[in-house]
């Protein structure tokens, strides 16, 4: 396997990791006003992701950095082309990150309510927009021969991409509900489990529709197999959620998200950003890549440090493995 393929895989793995991990963070954020009926319940919800959300978000920063280092043309064209969606994602992530930290720093109900809005919209907006962005990457966008984006904002809001946005939002919502059922005790756990099944059925319909549409745009055997596996994992996860096997349910939704992202990347390869305008504008893993020397250095760094990161992040989840409930929330 040549270096550009390895780095295509690594970027794909980083985004997959990001969507699996921050996927449930987004889900918890979107469910804050739904499952959290009072302040203490909302604090339970936020504290299920409290120790880990920041580490999860670094997957995005690493994915962005890896894209910049390994495929500068892809990074440059994509980030300048998808300008407004990325701006909205950034604003949402700013509001949401600060909200987690500041929400409980003052006792006033109005203060907390405002940050609750920030958590909700700060989770909903990226959950939709990441789907819109990745659907557009697969579908292709108008690129000139020198790799400049030639469309506007509304080009990105085509029906297929909007279905992609609805799908990621629904997937993250289900994933988040399953995560809450796994991490809490008491009434809130039961409500989360019931909600996961209800939302999950709608999610399955959306996901199957989106993946099928994706495969009609571009596909290969591996992508089709991955899409089928994603659907099976999601249905398995939902069955486990229905049976109240919460650990298995979480593995199911996590695998479904991972396999769905893998489907998109596999269908995309060897392109990284196809052009719908001028075929010469299409960016591929080869023409967008850095030099072999840079890729070789980056490969060594990734080979050494990725296992270390996985080990200590995994350990964090082990340390905070206990379920929490309203009894664990201090009164002040």
């Amino acid at each position, binding site marked *: 396997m040549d270096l550009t393929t390895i780095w295509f895989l690594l970027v794909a793995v980083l985004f997959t990791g990001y969507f699996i991990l921050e996927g449930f963070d987004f889900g918890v954020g979107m469910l804050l006003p739904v499952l959290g009926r009072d302040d203490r319940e909302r604090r339970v919800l936020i504290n299920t992701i*409290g120790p880990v959300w920041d580490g999860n978000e670094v997957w995005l920063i690493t994915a962005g950095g890896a894209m*910049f280092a390994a495929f*500068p*043309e892809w990074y*440059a064209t994509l980030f300048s082309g998808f300008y407004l969606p990325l701006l909205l994602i*950034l604003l949402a992530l700013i509001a949401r990150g600060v909200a987690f930290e500041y929400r409980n720093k003052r006792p006033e109900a109005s203060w907390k309510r405002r940050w609750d809005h920030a958590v909700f919209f700060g989770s909903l907006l990226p959950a939709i927009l990441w789907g819109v962005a990745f659907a557009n990457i697969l579908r292709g966008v108008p690129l000139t021969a020198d790799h400049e984006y030639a469309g506007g904002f509304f080009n990105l809001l085509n029906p297929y991409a909007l279905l992609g946005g609805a799908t990621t939002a629904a997937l993250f919502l289900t994933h988040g509900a399953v995560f809450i059922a796994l991490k809490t005790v008491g009434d809130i756990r039961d409500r989360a489990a019931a909600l996961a099944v209800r939302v999950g059925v709608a999610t399955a319909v959306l996901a199957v529709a989106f993946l099928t549409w994706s495969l009609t745009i571009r596909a290969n055997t591996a992508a089709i197999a991955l899409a089928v596996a994603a659907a099976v994992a999601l249905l398995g996860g939902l069955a486990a959620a229905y049976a109240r096997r919460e650990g298995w349910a979480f593995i199911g939704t996590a695998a479904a998200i991972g396999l769905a992202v893998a489907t998109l990347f596999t269908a995309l390869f060897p392109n990284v950003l196809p052009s719908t305008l001028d075929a010469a504008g299409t960016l591929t893993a080869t023409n967008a890549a850095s030099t072999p*020397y*840079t890729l070789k250095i*980056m490969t060594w760094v990734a080979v050494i440090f990725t296992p270390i990161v996985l080990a200590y992040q995994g350990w964090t989840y082990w340390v905070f493995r206990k379920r929490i409930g309203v009894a664990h929330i201090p009164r002040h």
Partner: protein
Amino acid sequence: MDALDVARWQFGVTTVYHFLFVPLTIGLSILVAILQTLWHRTGDEKYLKLTKFYGKLFLINFAMGVVTGIVQEFQFGMNWSDYSRFVGDIFGAPLAIEALVAFFLESTFIGLWIFGWDRLPKRLHLATIWAAAIGTNLSAYFILAANSFMQNPVGYRINPDTGRAELTDFVAVLTNKVALITFPHTIAGAFLVAGSLLVAVALWHLIRRPDSTDTPAYRFAAKFGSWVTLISATAVMITGDIQGKIMTQVQPMKMAAAEGLYNTESPASFSVLTVGSLDGSRELFALKIPYLLSYLSTGDPNGTVSGINDLQAQYTAQYGAGNYSPIIPITYWSFRLMIGFGLAAAAIALLVLWSQRKGRTPTSRWLLRAGLVMPLLPLAANSFGWIFTEMGRQPWIVFGEMLTRDGVSRSVSMTEVLTSFTAFTLIYAALAVIECKLLIRYAKAGVPDLTPDPDTDDTDDAERPLAFAY
């Protein structure tokens, strides 16, 4: 004004803003780790109180550093895509390594530290704050190595077919002499901010409530912070001096602009105050110390220092027609304000130490006022330092290789950049107000009371509230 100007303003505003939080994160992470280590070693409760107290201020600030940092990484691709294409082969690597090696470490272990007070064994919990602090400081190195490539490009070649810069020697990029000296200079500047914050908050409590039972804790914090401030001020000066000499070699125009030195001189005198003509080509009035500039730039009191006009002529011959000097009043004043504000913070730290000599407790209202503005001084010094070094490199984005105006995104419209500039400025301004109010609120609240909550004592372990919760 066009899209280029707005993109430049956005980069300036978002970067200066980001760097208001970063120094405190860099410095305070280590200082909090030291406080917790002191508690671990001595068992003295005042250190635990200080750890939790300053730890809270650290976290309020940390959140802002994190969220404004993501903007920085995205901004290169969004607003500066041609720059990203040109340098991606070199510049992307340190950014990616920073995320993988340093930022994961920092953010994961911060989470463990915040929520791990009652979940981890004491020693392991202490290790988590050190891991986070090391991650934070390590991340600064990679970012500064990337920036140093823009200041003094090394370890690369220009591919004649693509016109892009390509990495040829990664070790050279990481050991760029500008990076090696900018790192200690920046870290020392960060400790200047963190030390000053320690002093300001402790002094406020000492003077307002001299008979509080927590006075020993605040006395320690004020002294510790003052020493940190003084030592880092010394380190800032030493590293700054070396950096000035290196900068004179790699970017003589920046240093000539810092001095408002229009014509080459040997020996050159240091300008304390120079007023130039409005178009910046001539000086009208100047107050000078003879030989000093020669010594500062070259280490030799009779050394030759190139002037702006001569460098302009040299660059025109080398790179073609164009204006190769930065905006002189900005470089001249930002350089002086950087030094002035830094020295002022060190002077206040000296006063605070003097006020506590032989076990005295400071009482002066004047000292209190000075102490309260103290953290703002190194913050301003840091900002002016970055404004100086970045504005002083202009018109280059990569010195000698790419002009800033050639790095901007061609496909991004004026409306889009203006939208993003406005949105970031507004949200940043609102968050600045919120963050300052919270910091003041928690600084005023003082060190926490450590007596355990009576109603949680007898509950069984599974039901006990978390020691820390959002």
